């Protein structure tokens, strides 16, 4: 009977006797007998670790996607994670610690998060960054909550350039908060803010940079629109692209959020990832989630602690700025280590190599019969959307046979009928392709060749 319980039979007997009980069953005397389970759980009996591991390996082997050369992105990217980052991030002191409620024995984790906050702040150009949220999508929800809470206006203008899943999550939670979401369509990969003319009571203008189709939008109009409404501008930024692109702050963002996965976290079938959240100082008291601050100890030595805790649920309860408690600290730590490994030059290198690879790949694919850009002449960086002569899903199937995860079919992201991001007619033929710094010229050229074959 495999388990991890230290109790010997003598221990149990001794402890029961100390409690004046004659059986472990009596420990549950407070549970009305009518409620107690009479039958055994309909689960397998316990199995020793090697058996369980073998079963997990079998399931892992059934994930053919793991072996394919990855050209898929759409918010989850196949970046280099070096052994040194894995080695440090997996140190058990970090992995098996709890939330730093006792700062004196948590300086290691606290300082790492302080460094993480500093890096996110510098990346997005905003002075405040929190200790992470669940993922990019939920970080965006918090951004909307902050904006609506600050302005007192329920309207949220959401560019259709925001990742479809993120928009879906926004919608789900708006049911509770009562925000009025208005999606603003794209035209040629750029948000057509004009389409939102009629709307008023706008508290937030939400836009992606680059957007989920990979396009670099001019964020000027969004900022202007926000000013017109006295709303806040929230930018969902790709943190890798931010290494070479104008920072959200430079575009005038009040809040910037992002998905931190590209910095040290493997693809992981979508999680655990981490939500990055940064904002202007004015909003710090509405900041969702944990914040680490520097202070001193009784001897005046430098120390770190979670601070401004009165914002949080355990103290503010129903008036808290957010309900988040457990966040994604370990991923934030990993992100800090990865960014420390990359450094200033490395981050720029990674972003540039993604862009160079994407350009090489896009040129190759556009040279194929019937393959066209889906976003007109709008510039793209690390990711681009194509219209294929045949259904994208079919092409992906064929590419998998050739050893490639060829991208993400648009209809899978936006639904068969589309969502205003691309012309509905194009959805089924739409494919989103992404290239990271890990892809070599050879891989890309073989990919293009396989793609050519797959179109025939």
């Amino acid at each position, binding site marked *: 009977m495999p388990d991890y319980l230290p109790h010997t039979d003598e221990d149990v007997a001794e402890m029961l006797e100390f*409690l004046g009980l004659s059986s472990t069953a009596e420990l549950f005397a407070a549970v009305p007998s009518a409620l107690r389970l009479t039958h055994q759980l309909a*689960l397998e009996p316990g199995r020793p670790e090697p058996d369980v*591991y073998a079963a997990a390996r079998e399931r892992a082997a059934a994930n053919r996607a793991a072996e394919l050369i990855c050209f898929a992105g759409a918010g989850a990217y196949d970046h280099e994670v070096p052994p040194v980052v894995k080695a440090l991030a997996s140190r058990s002191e970090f992995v098996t610690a709890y939330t730093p409620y006792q700062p*004196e024995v948590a300086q290691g984790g606290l300082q790492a998060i302080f460094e993480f906050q500093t890096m996110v702040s510098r990346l997005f150009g905003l002075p405040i960054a929190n200790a992470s949220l669940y993922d990019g999508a939920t970080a965006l929800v918090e951004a909307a909550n902050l904006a609506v809470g600050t302005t007192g206006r329920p309207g949220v203008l959401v560019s259709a350039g925001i990742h479809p899943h993120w928009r879906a999550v926004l*919608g789900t939670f708006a049911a509770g908060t009562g925000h009025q979401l208005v999606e603003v369509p794209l035209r040629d990969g750029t948000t057509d803010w004009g389409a939102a003319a009629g709307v008023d009571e706008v508290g937030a203008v939400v836009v992606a940079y680059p957007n989920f189709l990979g396009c670099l939008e001019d964020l000027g109009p969004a900022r202007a629109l926000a000013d017109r409404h006295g709303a806040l501008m929230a930018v969902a930024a790709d943190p890798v692209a931010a290494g070479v692109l104008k920072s959200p702050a430079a575009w005038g963002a009040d809040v910037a959020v992002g998905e931190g996965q590209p910095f040290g976290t493997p*693809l992981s*079938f979508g999680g655990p990832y981490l939500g990055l959240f940064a904002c202007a100082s004015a909003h710090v008291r509405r900041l969702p989630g944990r914040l680490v601050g520097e202070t001193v100890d009784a001897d005046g030595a430098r120390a770190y602690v979670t601070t401004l805790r009165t914002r949080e649920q355990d103290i503010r309860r129903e008036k808290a700025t957010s*309900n988040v408690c457990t966040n994604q600290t370990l991923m934030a730590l990993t992100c800090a280590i990865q960014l420390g490994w990359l450094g*200033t030059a490395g981050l720029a290198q990674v972003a540039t190599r993604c862009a160079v690879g994407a350009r090489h790949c896009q040129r190759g694919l556009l040279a194929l019969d019937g393959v066209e850009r889906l976003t007109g002449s709008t510039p793209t960086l690390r990711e681009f959307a194509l219209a294929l002569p045949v259904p994208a899903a079919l092409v992906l199937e064929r590419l998998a046979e050739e050893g490639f995860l060829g991208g993400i079919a648009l209809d899978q992201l936006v639904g068969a009928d589309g969502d205003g991001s691309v012309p509905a007619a194009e959805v089924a033929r739409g494919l989103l392709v992404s290239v990271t710094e890990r892809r*070599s010229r050879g891989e890309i050229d073989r990919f293009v060749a396989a793609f050519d074959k797959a179109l025939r």
Partner: protein
Amino acid sequence: MTAAGGRASSAPLVGRGSEPTLFELSRRGRSSYQLATTGLEEEGTEDLIPSEHRRAEPADLAEVSERDLVGHFTRLSHRQYSVDLGAYPLGSCTMKYNPKICDAVASLPGLAEVHPGAPAPLVQGWLATLVALEAALCELSGMAAATLQPAAGAAGELTGLLLMRAYDQGRGERRRRVIIPDSAHGTNPASVTLGGYEVTTVRSDDRGCLDVRALRDVLDDDVAGMMLTNPNTLGLFEDDIVEIADAVHEVGGLMYYDGANLNAILGVVRPGDMGFDIVHFNLHKTFATPHGGGGPGAGPVAVAPHLVDFLPGPRPVVLEGPTHPGAAPRYGWATPARSIGRVHGWHGNALVLARALAYIEVHGRDGLVRVAERAVLNANWLRKRLSGTFVVPFDRPGMHEVVFSAAQLKKRTGAGAHDVAKGLIDEGFHPPTVAFPLIVDDALMVEPTETESLETLVELAEALERVVARAETEGLADAPSTTPVRRVDEARAARTLVPTFDARR
């Protein structure tokens, strides 16, 4: 009594002083990164980014050698307490030992290196994992189906409240209130607000359980439901649970189970059988995912049959059973008819889910029951052992955790729960949870968990006794004194906020 496995006697190694930040270790021109050769290095980059989009100057990050990167984070790890170093009796958090097999499973390339957007036929192993976990969670909770998307307990709570809301609207209603006990965890009321409901708090009675009469007073058809954790945050089993559930159901409300304390009742009694309609799990508590210093976790939500249609989507499902014996079924995705929609950018914290399944598979149906038994055994042993040392507000057999009050000690010595916590640090233990639940003054909430041995409990008890003795003699104002830093000035941190290295003046 032999030496304990429980005390972290990680002792001073060498040196003193604080560890500089990575930014202070940084030196322009140093680097660690090495990127794969692409063969595209020579390609021009001038026209790569339109000038109006180009970043003015590079994002300034630390620049260190790999050697200094390793030194820095290794030293930081030596300034961090953890379960692997010693006992962590932090109430409500279930800081049990996390078997390393789960790490091994979570780092299988076939699981960790899978893109979440890959077509279903290419991720059959992942879908099988999720479907298997959902089934196990439903069996453990007595529910019909579950969503695995919520990333933590609080996310599960909010998901549950949105399910309540959808159910409400489904029957053409618009109820406004959700009831929680005054002993509830802070995420409960916070989630209620975000769910668009108003909180109605019901007090606990002198037995530390929900005051059923007080509950009846506030029940009416404006009540959408009630959130409860059972055993409650005092570690006591709400034995009126059936009556409570009936009362709430009578007015048409739904019962929400906060699963943070599920560890106490695994395989003994199921939320579904108690009358709950919605249940969230904290996989990082009950199913031994390490807490990572504050996350990640996972907060799946299971529901009764009448709520299945509202679950978030897409959900992993079996599209087609095995075509022949021994064959695997075909898995895919499906979104429930009246789904409230997505609550996560992808499919939830997948690797955490894979860990939980491994944990469940190793323990199996009887191992999980033993987990609950030993957790309850340990907590009750400590309760009795320490009942002479601290006041036990509601002194009767409890479940997996016990709440002491240091209020009397404070009156006597001026040292309260907070000081006891700092004193215990000097004894080599991580302190219990303090100042929660709110209904006990100077609460010390102790959850030993099932993975600590009797020897460790004895050491912990003796350590707490020494701390009380210290409080009565020299006092605890100086504690802790054996830590990398002495007592931290939390007030100053809030007064003069320094949230980044750049904010330092």
